[in-house]
Protein backbone atom coordinates (compact mmCIF):
# COMPACT_ATOMS: atom_id res chain seq x y z
CA UNK A 1 0.00 0.00 0.00
CA UNK A 2 2.91 2.27 0.64
CA UNK A 3 4.05 1.53 -2.86
CA UNK A 4 0.63 2.43 -4.23
CA UNK A 5 0.73 5.74 -2.43
CA UNK A 6 4.19 6.55 -3.67
CA UNK A 7 3.47 5.68 -7.29
CA UNK A 8 0.30 7.69 -7.00
CA UNK A 9 2.25 10.70 -5.83
CA UNK A 10 4.68 10.39 -8.68
CA UNK A 11 1.71 10.35 -11.05
CA UNK A 12 0.13 13.49 -9.73
CA UNK A 13 2.97 15.52 -11.20
CA UNK A 14 1.54 14.77 -14.61
CA UNK A 15 -2.13 15.31 -14.04
CA UNK A 16 -1.97 19.06 -14.38
CA UNK A 17 -1.86 22.17 -12.27
CA UNK A 18 -4.48 22.56 -9.54
CA UNK A 19 -3.96 26.28 -9.05
CA UNK A 20 -5.85 27.60 -12.08
CA UNK A 21 -8.98 25.88 -10.80
CA UNK A 22 -8.68 27.37 -7.36
CA UNK A 23 -8.44 31.04 -8.17
CA UNK A 24 -10.28 33.49 -10.35
CA UNK A 25 -8.94 34.97 -13.54
CA UNK A 26 -8.06 38.28 -11.87
CA UNK A 27 -5.75 36.69 -9.31
CA UNK A 28 -2.17 37.77 -9.75
CA UNK A 29 0.73 35.49 -10.56
CA UNK A 30 2.39 36.15 -7.21
CA UNK A 31 -0.70 35.10 -5.33
CA UNK A 32 -0.89 31.93 -7.41
CA UNK A 33 2.71 31.17 -6.55
CA UNK A 34 2.01 31.88 -2.90
CA UNK A 35 -0.92 29.48 -2.89
CA UNK A 36 1.17 26.83 -4.56
CA UNK A 37 3.81 27.32 -1.90
CA UNK A 38 1.23 27.16 0.89
CA UNK A 39 -0.27 23.96 -0.44
CA UNK A 40 3.19 22.41 -0.40
CA UNK A 41 3.15 21.80 -4.14
CA UNK A 42 6.63 23.21 -4.58
CA UNK A 43 8.17 20.59 -2.31
CA UNK A 44 9.79 17.55 -3.85
CA UNK A 45 7.70 14.43 -4.31
CA UNK A 46 9.50 12.74 -1.46
CA UNK A 47 8.70 15.54 0.98
CA UNK A 48 5.08 15.69 -0.13
CA UNK A 49 4.86 11.94 0.19
CA UNK A 50 6.35 12.06 3.69
CA UNK A 51 3.75 14.62 4.75
CA UNK A 52 0.97 12.57 3.31
CA UNK A 53 2.02 9.33 4.99
CA UNK A 54 2.67 11.12 8.27
CA UNK A 55 -0.88 12.45 8.23
CA UNK A 56 -2.44 9.29 6.84
CA UNK A 57 -1.04 7.24 9.71
CA UNK A 58 -2.96 9.53 12.05
CA UNK A 59 -6.08 9.03 9.94
CA UNK A 60 -5.82 12.51 8.46
CA UNK A 61 -6.10 12.85 4.68
CA UNK A 62 -6.25 16.59 4.33
CA UNK A 63 -8.89 18.73 2.76
CA UNK A 64 -10.14 18.66 -0.81
CA UNK A 65 -8.88 21.65 -2.76
CA UNK A 66 -12.01 21.91 -4.81
CA UNK A 67 -14.76 21.05 -2.38
CA UNK A 68 -12.99 22.53 0.63
CA UNK A 69 -14.08 19.73 2.87
CA UNK A 70 -12.05 17.08 4.71
CA UNK A 71 -11.40 14.16 2.39
CA UNK A 72 -12.38 11.75 5.13
CA UNK A 73 -15.88 13.19 5.28
CA UNK A 74 -16.22 13.27 1.52
CA UNK A 75 -15.27 9.64 1.14
CA UNK A 76 -17.52 8.61 4.02
CA UNK A 77 -20.37 10.44 2.29
CA UNK A 78 -19.73 8.86 -1.07
CA UNK A 79 -18.68 5.35 -0.15
CA UNK A 80 -22.19 3.98 0.54
CA UNK A 81 -23.37 5.03 -2.91
CA UNK A 82 -20.57 3.19 -4.67
CA UNK A 83 -20.82 0.11 -2.48
CA UNK A 84 -24.57 -0.24 -2.95
CA UNK A 85 -24.20 0.17 -6.69
CA UNK A 86 -21.37 -2.35 -6.94
CA UNK A 87 -23.14 -4.89 -4.73
CA UNK A 88 -26.37 -4.72 -6.65
CA UNK A 89 -24.61 -4.94 -9.99
CA UNK A 90 -22.47 -7.85 -8.83
CA UNK A 91 -25.67 -9.51 -7.65
CA UNK A 92 -27.38 -8.96 -11.01
CA UNK A 93 -24.31 -10.19 -12.84
CA UNK A 94 -24.19 -13.41 -10.82
CA UNK A 95 -27.93 -13.96 -10.89
CA UNK A 96 -28.11 -13.72 -14.65
CA UNK A 97 -24.58 -14.80 -15.51
CA UNK A 98 -24.42 -18.14 -13.69
CA UNK A 99 -27.58 -19.71 -15.16
CA UNK A 100 -26.64 -18.42 -18.61
CA UNK A 101 -23.14 -19.83 -18.23
CA UNK A 102 -24.39 -23.21 -17.06
CA UNK A 103 -26.91 -23.38 -19.86
CA UNK A 104 -24.43 -22.52 -22.58
CA UNK A 105 -22.10 -25.21 -21.27
CA UNK A 106 -24.74 -27.93 -21.01
CA UNK A 107 -26.40 -27.20 -24.34
CA UNK A 108 -23.30 -26.09 -26.10
CA UNK A 109 -24.57 -26.43 -29.64
CA UNK A 110 -28.14 -25.24 -29.23
CA UNK A 111 -29.23 -22.04 -30.91
CA UNK A 112 -30.19 -20.46 -27.61
CA UNK A 113 -26.72 -21.08 -26.21
CA UNK A 114 -25.14 -19.57 -29.28
CA UNK A 115 -27.49 -16.63 -28.91
CA UNK A 116 -26.48 -16.16 -25.28
CA UNK A 117 -22.84 -16.20 -26.22
CA UNK A 118 -23.33 -13.63 -28.95
CA UNK A 119 -25.44 -11.47 -26.68
CA UNK A 120 -22.82 -11.60 -23.97
CA UNK A 121 -20.24 -10.47 -26.50
CA UNK A 122 -22.24 -7.41 -27.41
CA UNK A 123 -22.05 -6.58 -23.72
CA UNK A 124 -18.31 -6.20 -23.88
CA UNK A 125 -18.07 -4.75 -27.36
CA UNK A 126 -20.09 -1.63 -26.57
CA UNK A 127 -18.35 0.99 -24.45
CA UNK A 128 -20.01 1.39 -21.06
CA UNK A 129 -20.76 5.05 -21.58
CA UNK A 130 -22.67 4.30 -24.75
CA UNK A 131 -24.78 1.61 -23.05
CA UNK A 132 -25.52 4.06 -20.25
CA UNK A 133 -26.59 6.83 -22.61
CA UNK A 134 -28.79 4.46 -24.59
CA UNK A 135 -30.51 3.27 -21.40
CA UNK A 136 -31.07 6.86 -20.32
CA UNK A 137 -32.42 7.79 -23.73
CA UNK A 138 -34.81 4.84 -23.82
CA UNK A 139 -36.04 4.31 -20.26
CA UNK A 140 -35.52 7.82 -18.96
CA UNK A 141 -36.36 10.14 -21.80
CA UNK A 142 -38.66 8.18 -24.10
CA UNK A 143 -40.57 5.99 -21.66
CA UNK A 144 -39.95 8.16 -18.60
CA UNK A 145 -40.02 5.10 -16.36
CA UNK A 146 -36.81 5.62 -14.51
CA UNK A 147 -34.92 8.63 -13.19
CA UNK A 148 -31.90 9.52 -15.31
CA UNK A 149 -29.45 10.69 -12.68
CA UNK A 150 -28.53 10.61 -9.02
CA UNK A 151 -29.54 8.32 -6.19
CA UNK A 152 -33.11 9.42 -5.61
CA UNK A 153 -34.19 9.81 -2.00
CA UNK A 154 -31.87 8.26 0.48
CA UNK A 155 -32.40 7.33 4.09
CA UNK A 156 -29.71 8.46 6.49
CA UNK A 157 -28.94 5.84 9.09
CA UNK A 158 -26.43 8.06 10.81
CA UNK A 159 -23.34 6.24 9.65
CA UNK A 160 -24.65 5.13 6.30
CA UNK A 161 -26.98 6.58 3.70
CA UNK A 162 -28.93 4.00 1.81
CA UNK A 163 -31.08 4.06 -1.28
CA UNK A 164 -32.42 0.60 -0.59
CA UNK A 165 -35.24 1.84 1.63
CA UNK A 166 -37.08 4.14 -0.75
CA UNK A 167 -38.90 3.56 -4.01
CA UNK A 168 -37.05 6.35 -5.77
CA UNK A 169 -33.78 4.96 -4.43
CA UNK A 170 -34.46 1.60 -6.05
CA UNK A 171 -35.66 3.18 -9.25
CA UNK A 172 -32.49 5.23 -9.47
CA UNK A 173 -30.36 2.16 -8.90
CA UNK A 174 -31.75 0.07 -11.73
CA UNK A 175 -30.10 1.64 -14.77
CA UNK A 176 -26.63 2.26 -13.31
CA UNK A 177 -26.58 -1.23 -11.80
CA UNK A 178 -27.47 -2.84 -15.11
CA UNK A 179 -24.93 -0.77 -16.97
CA UNK A 180 -22.23 -1.79 -14.55
CA UNK A 181 -23.41 -5.42 -14.44
CA UNK A 182 -23.27 -6.04 -18.17
CA UNK A 183 -19.52 -6.27 -18.38
CA UNK A 184 -19.21 -8.47 -15.30
CA UNK A 185 -22.03 -10.65 -16.55
CA UNK A 186 -20.30 -11.25 -19.85
CA UNK A 187 -17.20 -12.31 -18.04
CA UNK A 188 -19.07 -14.66 -15.71
CA UNK A 189 -21.00 -16.33 -18.53
CA UNK A 190 -17.82 -17.01 -20.44
CA UNK A 191 -15.87 -18.21 -17.43
CA UNK A 192 -18.57 -20.51 -16.13
CA UNK A 193 -19.04 -21.98 -19.57
CA UNK A 194 -15.37 -22.67 -20.09
CA UNK A 195 -14.86 -24.16 -16.65
CA UNK A 196 -18.04 -26.22 -16.79
CA UNK A 197 -16.98 -27.72 -20.09
CA UNK A 198 -13.75 -28.86 -18.49
CA UNK A 199 -15.33 -30.17 -15.34
CA UNK A 200 -18.11 -32.02 -17.13
CA UNK A 201 -15.53 -34.20 -18.80
CA UNK A 202 -13.66 -35.04 -15.66
CA UNK A 203 -13.72 -38.47 -14.15
CA UNK A 204 -15.78 -37.81 -11.08
CA UNK A 205 -18.65 -36.50 -13.18
CA UNK A 206 -18.48 -39.68 -15.20
CA UNK A 207 -18.60 -41.66 -11.95
CA UNK A 208 -21.56 -39.64 -10.79
CA UNK A 209 -23.33 -40.43 -14.04
CA UNK A 210 -22.40 -44.06 -13.66
CA UNK A 211 -23.94 -44.04 -10.19
CA UNK A 212 -27.16 -42.98 -11.85
CA UNK A 213 -27.46 -39.57 -10.28
CA UNK A 214 -29.87 -37.18 -11.91
CA UNK A 215 -28.43 -34.97 -14.64
CA UNK A 216 -29.68 -31.83 -12.88
CA UNK A 217 -28.10 -32.78 -9.60
CA UNK A 218 -24.83 -33.54 -11.34
CA UNK A 219 -24.72 -30.23 -13.16
CA UNK A 220 -25.52 -28.06 -10.22
CA UNK A 221 -24.21 -29.72 -7.10
CA UNK A 222 -21.13 -31.32 -8.54
CA UNK A 223 -20.06 -29.53 -11.66
CA UNK A 224 -21.06 -25.96 -10.84
CA UNK A 225 -19.54 -26.09 -7.40
CA UNK A 226 -16.20 -27.04 -8.84
CA UNK A 227 -16.26 -24.32 -11.43
CA UNK A 228 -16.80 -21.62 -8.83
CA UNK A 229 -13.26 -21.62 -7.47
CA UNK A 230 -11.55 -20.25 -10.56
CA UNK A 231 -14.55 -18.03 -11.23
CA UNK A 232 -14.20 -16.41 -7.84
CA UNK A 233 -10.47 -15.92 -8.38
CA UNK A 234 -11.03 -14.09 -11.62
CA UNK A 235 -13.93 -12.06 -10.27
CA UNK A 236 -11.72 -11.00 -7.40
CA UNK A 237 -9.12 -9.93 -9.94
CA UNK A 238 -11.73 -8.13 -11.99
CA UNK A 239 -12.63 -5.80 -9.14
CA UNK A 240 -10.04 -3.50 -10.64
CA UNK A 241 -12.02 -3.23 -13.82
CA UNK A 242 -15.25 -3.01 -11.83
CA UNK A 243 -13.85 0.09 -10.21
CA UNK A 244 -12.67 1.45 -13.53
CA UNK A 245 -16.09 0.89 -15.06
CA UNK A 246 -17.81 2.28 -11.99
CA UNK A 247 -16.03 5.54 -12.71
CA UNK A 248 -17.66 5.67 -16.13
CA UNK A 249 -21.06 4.48 -14.94
CA UNK A 250 -21.09 6.96 -12.11
CA UNK A 251 -20.17 9.85 -14.33
CA UNK A 252 -22.80 8.94 -16.93
CA UNK A 253 -25.55 8.69 -14.31
CA UNK A 254 -24.22 11.43 -12.04
CA UNK A 255 -24.16 8.77 -9.32
CA UNK A 256 -22.78 10.48 -6.22
CA UNK A 257 -20.21 7.80 -5.46
CA UNK A 258 -16.47 7.63 -5.17
CA UNK A 259 -15.86 7.05 -8.86
CA UNK A 260 -17.47 10.37 -9.70
CA UNK A 261 -15.54 12.02 -6.90
CA UNK A 262 -12.33 10.57 -8.28
CA UNK A 263 -12.85 11.44 -11.92
CA UNK A 264 -13.69 15.02 -10.99
CA UNK A 265 -10.67 15.09 -8.74
CA UNK A 266 -8.53 14.09 -11.71
CA UNK A 267 -10.08 16.78 -13.85
CA UNK A 268 -9.53 19.47 -11.24
CA UNK A 269 -6.24 18.01 -9.97
CA UNK A 270 -7.58 17.58 -6.46
CA UNK A 271 -4.55 15.77 -5.07
CA UNK A 272 -5.80 15.00 -1.54
CA UNK A 273 -8.84 13.20 -2.92
CA UNK A 274 -6.85 11.31 -5.53
CA UNK A 275 -4.32 10.01 -3.04
CA UNK A 276 -6.89 9.01 -0.44
CA UNK A 277 -8.99 7.29 -3.08
CA UNK A 278 -6.10 5.25 -4.43
CA UNK A 279 -5.08 4.26 -0.92
CA UNK A 280 -8.62 3.16 -0.19
CA UNK A 281 -8.78 1.14 -3.41
CA UNK A 282 -5.52 -0.58 -2.53
CA UNK A 283 -7.02 -1.42 0.85
CA UNK A 284 -10.16 -2.78 -0.83
CA UNK A 285 -7.93 -5.01 -2.96
CA UNK A 286 -6.22 -6.48 0.05
CA UNK A 287 -9.60 -7.06 1.62
CA UNK A 288 -11.02 -8.71 -1.48
CA UNK A 289 -8.06 -11.05 -1.81
CA UNK A 290 -8.67 -12.06 1.78
CA UNK A 291 -12.37 -12.67 1.20
CA UNK A 292 -11.61 -14.66 -1.93
CA UNK A 293 -9.26 -16.90 0.01
CA UNK A 294 -11.87 -17.50 2.69
CA UNK A 295 -14.48 -18.25 0.05
CA UNK A 296 -12.28 -20.96 -1.46
CA UNK A 297 -12.51 -22.86 1.76
CA UNK A 298 -16.22 -22.37 2.03
CA UNK A 299 -16.88 -23.68 -1.45
CA UNK A 300 -14.30 -26.32 -2.10
CA UNK A 301 -14.26 -29.10 0.48
CA UNK A 302 -10.92 -30.41 -0.77
CA UNK A 303 -9.15 -27.29 0.44
CA UNK A 304 -10.63 -27.61 3.91
CA UNK A 305 -8.97 -30.93 4.47
CA UNK A 306 -5.52 -29.50 3.96
Amino acid at each position, binding site marked *: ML*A*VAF*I*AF*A*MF*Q*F*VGDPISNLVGQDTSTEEREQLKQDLGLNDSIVVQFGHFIGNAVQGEFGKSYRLRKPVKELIAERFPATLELSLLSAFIALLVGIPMGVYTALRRDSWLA*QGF*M*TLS*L*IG*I*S*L*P*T*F*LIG*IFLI*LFFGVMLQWLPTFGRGETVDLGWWTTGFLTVSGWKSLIMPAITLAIFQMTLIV*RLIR*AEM*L*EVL*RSDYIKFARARGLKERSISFSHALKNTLVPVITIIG*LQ*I*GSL*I*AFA*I*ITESVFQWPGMGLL*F*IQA*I*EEVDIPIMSAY*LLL*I*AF*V*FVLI*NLIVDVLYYAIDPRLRMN
Partner: protein
Amino acid sequence: MVEYFIDLRQRFFASDIWWSFKSSPLVVIAAFITVIIIFSSVFASYVAPYNPFDLAQFDLMDALKPPAWMAEGTSKFLLGTDDQGRDVLSTILYGSRVSLLVGFLSVIFAMIIGIVVGLIAGYSGGWVDAVLMRIADVQLSFPAILIALLVDGIARGLLPKNSHDELAIYVLIVAIALSFWVQYARTVRSSTMVERTKEYVQAAQVIGLPKLLILFRHILPNVMGPVLVIATIQLALAVITEATLSFLGVGVPPTSPSLGTLIRVGNDYLFSGEWWITVFPGLALVILVLAVNILGDWLRDALNPKLR
Protein backbone atom coordinates in the same frame (compact mmCIF):
# COMPACT_ATOMS: atom_id res chain seq x y z
CA MET B 1 10.57 -18.95 -31.56
CA VAL B 2 10.66 -18.97 -35.35
CA GLU B 3 11.05 -22.70 -35.54
CA TYR B 4 8.18 -23.01 -33.17
CA PHE B 5 5.87 -21.09 -35.44
CA ILE B 6 6.93 -22.95 -38.58
CA ASP B 7 6.34 -26.14 -36.76
CA LEU B 8 2.98 -24.88 -35.68
CA ARG B 9 2.01 -24.09 -39.24
CA GLN B 10 2.87 -27.53 -40.50
CA ARG B 11 0.87 -29.09 -37.77
CA PHE B 12 -1.93 -26.64 -38.35
CA PHE B 13 -3.24 -27.84 -41.69
CA ALA B 14 -3.00 -31.46 -40.68
CA SER B 15 -4.72 -30.82 -37.39
CA ASP B 16 -8.18 -31.06 -35.98
CA ILE B 17 -8.12 -27.32 -35.57
CA TRP B 18 -8.37 -26.76 -39.28
CA TRP B 19 -11.14 -29.28 -39.45
CA SER B 20 -13.09 -27.73 -36.62
CA PHE B 21 -12.63 -24.36 -38.27
CA LYS B 22 -14.09 -25.52 -41.56
CA SER B 23 -17.00 -27.25 -39.92
CA SER B 24 -18.36 -24.22 -38.07
CA PRO B 25 -20.02 -21.68 -40.36
CA LEU B 26 -20.17 -19.01 -37.65
CA VAL B 27 -16.43 -19.17 -37.18
CA VAL B 28 -15.81 -19.01 -40.92
CA ILE B 29 -18.00 -15.93 -41.19
CA ALA B 30 -16.25 -14.33 -38.24
CA ALA B 31 -12.85 -15.03 -39.75
CA PHE B 32 -14.02 -13.63 -43.05
CA ILE B 33 -15.27 -10.42 -41.43
CA THR B 34 -12.10 -10.03 -39.40
CA VAL B 35 -9.98 -10.37 -42.50
CA ILE B 36 -12.10 -7.86 -44.38
CA ILE B 37 -11.94 -5.32 -41.57
CA ILE B 38 -8.23 -5.73 -41.13
CA PHE B 39 -7.63 -5.55 -44.86
CA SER B 40 -9.79 -2.50 -45.46
CA SER B 41 -8.36 -0.60 -42.55
CA VAL B 42 -4.76 -1.41 -43.40
CA PHE B 43 -5.38 -0.30 -46.96
CA ALA B 44 -7.75 2.49 -45.90
CA SER B 45 -5.91 5.00 -48.05
CA TYR B 46 -6.89 2.99 -51.15
CA VAL B 47 -10.33 1.81 -50.06
CA ALA B 48 -11.74 4.92 -48.41
CA PRO B 49 -13.33 7.57 -50.63
CA TYR B 50 -11.62 10.40 -48.71
CA ASN B 51 -8.72 10.90 -46.37
CA PRO B 52 -10.24 12.31 -43.18
CA PHE B 53 -6.81 12.78 -41.61
CA ASP B 54 -5.86 15.28 -44.28
CA LEU B 55 -7.22 18.50 -42.87
CA ALA B 56 -7.31 20.22 -46.24
CA GLN B 57 -9.55 17.58 -47.80
CA PHE B 58 -12.82 18.29 -46.05
CA ASP B 59 -14.98 21.33 -45.66
CA LEU B 60 -16.88 22.53 -42.65
CA MET B 61 -19.76 23.48 -44.91
CA ASP B 62 -20.34 19.77 -45.61
CA ALA B 63 -20.83 19.07 -41.90
CA LEU B 64 -23.64 16.93 -40.52
CA LYS B 65 -24.99 15.56 -43.80
CA PRO B 66 -27.15 12.48 -43.20
CA PRO B 67 -26.46 9.15 -44.96
CA ALA B 68 -27.01 8.98 -48.70
CA TRP B 69 -30.38 7.19 -48.53
CA MET B 70 -31.99 9.85 -46.37
CA ALA B 71 -33.81 12.87 -47.70
CA GLU B 72 -31.01 15.39 -47.23
CA GLY B 73 -28.17 12.98 -47.88
CA THR B 74 -25.93 13.15 -50.91
CA SER B 75 -24.32 10.31 -52.80
CA LYS B 76 -20.99 12.00 -52.13
CA PHE B 77 -21.09 10.73 -48.56
CA LEU B 78 -22.52 7.23 -48.29
CA LEU B 79 -22.83 7.16 -44.50
CA GLY B 80 -23.12 10.92 -44.05
CA THR B 81 -20.63 13.36 -42.55
CA ASP B 82 -19.65 14.28 -39.01
CA ASP B 83 -19.51 17.64 -37.27
CA GLN B 84 -16.37 18.67 -39.16
CA GLY B 85 -17.62 17.66 -42.59
CA ARG B 86 -15.65 14.42 -42.72
CA ASP B 87 -17.07 11.43 -44.54
CA VAL B 88 -18.22 8.98 -41.86
CA LEU B 89 -17.36 5.90 -43.94
CA SER B 90 -13.81 7.12 -44.44
CA THR B 91 -13.36 8.02 -40.80
CA ILE B 92 -14.55 4.54 -39.83
CA LEU B 93 -11.99 2.92 -42.14
CA TYR B 94 -9.16 5.15 -40.97
CA GLY B 95 -10.40 4.98 -37.40
CA SER B 96 -10.41 1.17 -37.43
CA ARG B 97 -6.79 1.34 -38.46
CA VAL B 98 -5.94 3.42 -35.41
CA SER B 99 -8.04 1.20 -33.16
CA LEU B 100 -6.53 -2.01 -34.50
CA LEU B 101 -3.05 -0.60 -34.23
CA VAL B 102 -3.66 0.36 -30.61
CA GLY B 103 -5.38 -2.96 -29.96
CA PHE B 104 -2.77 -5.22 -31.53
CA LEU B 105 0.30 -3.41 -30.30
CA SER B 106 -0.95 -3.01 -26.76
CA VAL B 107 -1.96 -6.66 -26.58
CA ILE B 108 1.39 -7.80 -27.96
CA PHE B 109 3.21 -5.49 -25.59
CA ALA B 110 1.14 -6.66 -22.62
CA MET B 111 1.66 -10.26 -23.71
CA ILE B 112 5.43 -9.86 -23.80
CA ILE B 113 5.58 -8.25 -20.36
CA GLY B 114 3.11 -10.75 -18.96
CA ILE B 115 4.84 -13.81 -20.39
CA VAL B 116 8.28 -12.77 -19.24
CA VAL B 117 7.10 -11.88 -15.74
CA GLY B 118 4.92 -14.98 -15.53
CA LEU B 119 7.67 -17.32 -16.69
CA ILE B 120 10.20 -15.88 -14.29
CA ALA B 121 7.80 -15.81 -11.37
CA GLY B 122 6.50 -19.29 -12.02
CA TYR B 123 9.88 -20.85 -12.66
CA SER B 124 11.83 -19.15 -9.90
CA GLY B 125 9.24 -19.23 -7.16
CA GLY B 126 10.24 -17.97 -3.74
CA TRP B 127 10.79 -14.29 -3.09
CA VAL B 128 11.12 -13.41 -6.80
CA ASP B 129 7.65 -14.78 -7.31
CA ALA B 130 6.31 -12.98 -4.26
CA VAL B 131 7.75 -9.63 -5.30
CA LEU B 132 6.56 -9.88 -8.89
CA MET B 133 3.06 -10.86 -7.86
CA ARG B 134 2.84 -8.03 -5.33
CA ILE B 135 3.80 -5.64 -8.11
CA ALA B 136 0.99 -7.15 -10.13
CA ASP B 137 -1.43 -6.54 -7.27
CA VAL B 138 -0.37 -2.93 -6.94
CA GLN B 139 -0.78 -2.54 -10.66
CA LEU B 140 -4.36 -3.75 -10.47
CA SER B 141 -5.41 -1.03 -8.09
CA PHE B 142 -4.64 1.72 -10.59
CA PRO B 143 -7.36 2.60 -13.04
CA ALA B 144 -6.15 2.67 -16.64
CA ILE B 145 -6.86 6.38 -16.87
CA LEU B 146 -4.27 7.25 -14.25
CA ILE B 147 -1.71 5.06 -15.92
CA ALA B 148 -2.48 6.77 -19.21
CA LEU B 149 -2.00 10.18 -17.62
CA LEU B 150 1.29 9.09 -16.12
CA VAL B 151 2.65 7.63 -19.33
CA ASP B 152 1.48 10.69 -21.21
CA GLY B 153 3.24 13.00 -18.77
CA ILE B 154 6.49 11.08 -18.86
CA ALA B 155 6.43 10.80 -22.64
CA ARG B 156 5.88 14.52 -23.05
CA GLY B 157 8.73 15.19 -20.70
CA LEU B 158 11.19 12.87 -22.39
CA LEU B 159 10.37 13.00 -26.08
CA PRO B 160 10.80 15.87 -28.51
CA LYS B 161 7.84 18.12 -29.07
CA ASN B 162 5.74 18.67 -32.18
CA SER B 163 4.53 15.12 -32.47
CA HIS B 164 1.32 14.95 -30.48
CA ASP B 165 -0.59 12.94 -33.06
CA GLU B 166 1.75 10.00 -33.13
CA LEU B 167 2.72 10.38 -29.51
CA ALA B 168 -0.86 10.07 -28.29
CA ILE B 169 -1.23 6.68 -29.96
CA TYR B 170 1.90 5.27 -28.36
CA VAL B 171 0.93 6.69 -25.00
CA LEU B 172 -2.34 4.81 -25.28
CA ILE B 173 -0.61 1.62 -26.35
CA VAL B 174 1.80 1.68 -23.45
CA ALA B 175 -0.89 2.67 -20.97
CA ILE B 176 -3.27 -0.07 -22.05
CA ALA B 177 -0.49 -2.63 -22.14
CA LEU B 178 0.57 -1.63 -18.64
CA SER B 179 -2.92 -2.14 -17.32
CA PHE B 180 -3.39 -5.47 -19.12
CA TRP B 181 -0.23 -7.45 -18.54
CA VAL B 182 -1.20 -8.82 -15.16
CA GLN B 183 -3.68 -11.32 -16.55
CA TYR B 184 -1.06 -12.88 -18.80
CA ALA B 185 1.44 -12.92 -16.00
CA ARG B 186 -0.93 -14.75 -13.70
CA THR B 187 -1.97 -17.27 -16.32
CA VAL B 188 1.56 -18.00 -17.49
CA ARG B 189 2.79 -18.19 -13.93
CA SER B 190 0.28 -20.82 -12.90
CA SER B 191 0.89 -22.91 -16.04
CA THR B 192 4.64 -22.58 -15.59
CA MET B 193 4.42 -23.80 -12.04
CA VAL B 194 2.69 -26.91 -13.32
CA GLU B 195 5.14 -27.43 -16.21
CA ARG B 196 8.16 -26.90 -13.99
CA THR B 197 7.57 -30.15 -12.15
CA LYS B 198 7.19 -32.19 -15.33
CA GLU B 199 9.80 -34.68 -16.36
CA TYR B 200 10.93 -33.04 -19.57
CA VAL B 201 11.89 -29.90 -17.69
CA GLN B 202 13.70 -31.84 -15.05
CA ALA B 203 15.52 -33.76 -17.78
CA ALA B 204 16.59 -30.52 -19.39
CA GLN B 205 17.83 -29.23 -16.05
CA VAL B 206 19.81 -32.39 -15.49
CA ILE B 207 21.67 -32.13 -18.79
CA GLY B 208 22.57 -28.57 -17.80
CA LEU B 209 20.69 -26.48 -20.38
CA PRO B 210 20.72 -22.76 -19.56
CA LYS B 211 17.71 -21.50 -17.66
CA LEU B 212 16.63 -19.08 -20.39
CA LEU B 213 16.68 -21.78 -23.01
CA ILE B 214 14.53 -24.04 -20.88
CA LEU B 215 12.10 -21.24 -20.24
CA PHE B 216 11.63 -20.06 -23.77
CA ARG B 217 12.29 -23.17 -25.84
CA HIS B 218 10.57 -25.74 -23.69
CA ILE B 219 8.13 -24.21 -21.27
CA LEU B 220 6.83 -21.31 -23.34
CA PRO B 221 5.30 -23.38 -26.16
CA ASN B 222 3.37 -25.37 -23.62
CA VAL B 223 1.79 -22.36 -21.95
CA MET B 224 0.94 -20.44 -25.13
CA GLY B 225 -2.56 -21.88 -25.54
CA PRO B 226 -4.36 -19.96 -22.81
CA VAL B 227 -2.29 -16.87 -23.60
CA LEU B 228 -3.58 -16.74 -27.16
CA VAL B 229 -7.13 -17.08 -25.91
CA ILE B 230 -6.77 -14.21 -23.48
CA ALA B 231 -5.19 -12.19 -26.26
CA THR B 232 -8.23 -12.41 -28.53
CA ILE B 233 -10.53 -11.23 -25.77
CA GLN B 234 -8.15 -8.51 -24.73
CA LEU B 235 -7.82 -7.25 -28.27
CA ALA B 236 -11.47 -6.35 -28.06
CA LEU B 237 -11.05 -5.00 -24.56
CA ALA B 238 -8.12 -2.85 -25.65
CA VAL B 239 -10.17 -1.24 -28.39
CA ILE B 240 -12.91 -0.47 -25.89
CA THR B 241 -10.52 0.75 -23.24
CA GLU B 242 -9.09 3.11 -25.80
CA ALA B 243 -12.62 4.36 -26.48
CA THR B 244 -13.26 4.77 -22.77
CA LEU B 245 -10.03 6.66 -22.24
CA SER B 246 -10.90 9.05 -24.99
CA PHE B 247 -14.32 9.49 -23.36
CA LEU B 248 -12.46 10.55 -20.23
CA GLY B 249 -10.30 12.95 -22.21
CA VAL B 250 -7.06 11.00 -22.59
CA GLY B 251 -7.34 9.67 -26.10
CA VAL B 252 -6.00 10.19 -29.58
CA PRO B 253 -6.34 13.71 -30.97
CA PRO B 254 -9.65 14.45 -32.69
CA THR B 255 -7.84 15.29 -35.92
CA SER B 256 -6.88 11.63 -36.36
CA PRO B 257 -9.67 9.84 -34.57
CA SER B 258 -9.95 6.17 -33.66
CA LEU B 259 -13.23 4.30 -33.61
CA GLY B 260 -13.44 5.07 -29.91
CA THR B 261 -12.90 8.78 -30.42
CA LEU B 262 -15.52 8.76 -33.15
CA ILE B 263 -18.04 7.19 -30.80
CA ARG B 264 -17.13 9.66 -28.09
CA VAL B 265 -17.53 12.64 -30.42
CA GLY B 266 -20.73 11.20 -31.85
CA ASN B 267 -22.01 10.84 -28.31
CA ASP B 268 -22.54 14.62 -28.33
CA TYR B 269 -25.00 14.23 -31.18
CA LEU B 270 -27.20 11.43 -29.87
CA PHE B 271 -29.88 13.79 -28.61
CA SER B 272 -29.75 16.15 -31.52
CA GLY B 273 -30.76 13.54 -34.08
CA GLU B 274 -27.47 13.13 -35.95
CA TRP B 275 -27.39 9.47 -34.97
CA TRP B 276 -25.20 8.36 -37.86
CA ILE B 277 -22.10 10.00 -36.39
CA THR B 278 -22.09 7.58 -33.49
CA VAL B 279 -24.17 4.60 -34.63
CA PHE B 280 -22.03 3.59 -37.62
CA PRO B 281 -18.69 3.67 -35.80
CA GLY B 282 -20.40 1.90 -32.90
CA LEU B 283 -21.69 -0.77 -35.24
CA ALA B 284 -18.25 -1.18 -36.77
CA LEU B 285 -16.74 -1.59 -33.32
CA VAL B 286 -19.36 -4.16 -32.25
CA ILE B 287 -18.86 -6.20 -35.42
CA LEU B 288 -15.11 -6.12 -35.08
CA VAL B 289 -15.16 -7.13 -31.42
CA LEU B 290 -17.77 -9.78 -32.05
CA ALA B 291 -15.82 -11.35 -34.89
CA VAL B 292 -12.54 -11.39 -33.00
CA ASN B 293 -14.19 -12.88 -29.96
CA ILE B 294 -15.97 -15.61 -31.85
CA LEU B 295 -12.58 -16.53 -33.23
CA GLY B 296 -11.17 -16.41 -29.72
CA ASP B 297 -13.89 -18.66 -28.32
CA TRP B 298 -13.42 -21.11 -31.08
CA LEU B 299 -9.68 -21.09 -30.58
CA ARG B 300 -10.13 -21.70 -26.87
CA ASP B 301 -12.33 -24.71 -27.50
CA ALA B 302 -10.26 -26.02 -30.39
CA LEU B 303 -6.97 -25.82 -28.53
CA ASN B 304 -8.38 -27.72 -25.60
CA PRO B 305 -8.16 -31.41 -26.47
CA LYS B 306 -10.48 -32.38 -23.65
CA LEU B 307 -13.38 -30.62 -25.31
CA ARG B 308 -13.34 -32.40 -28.60
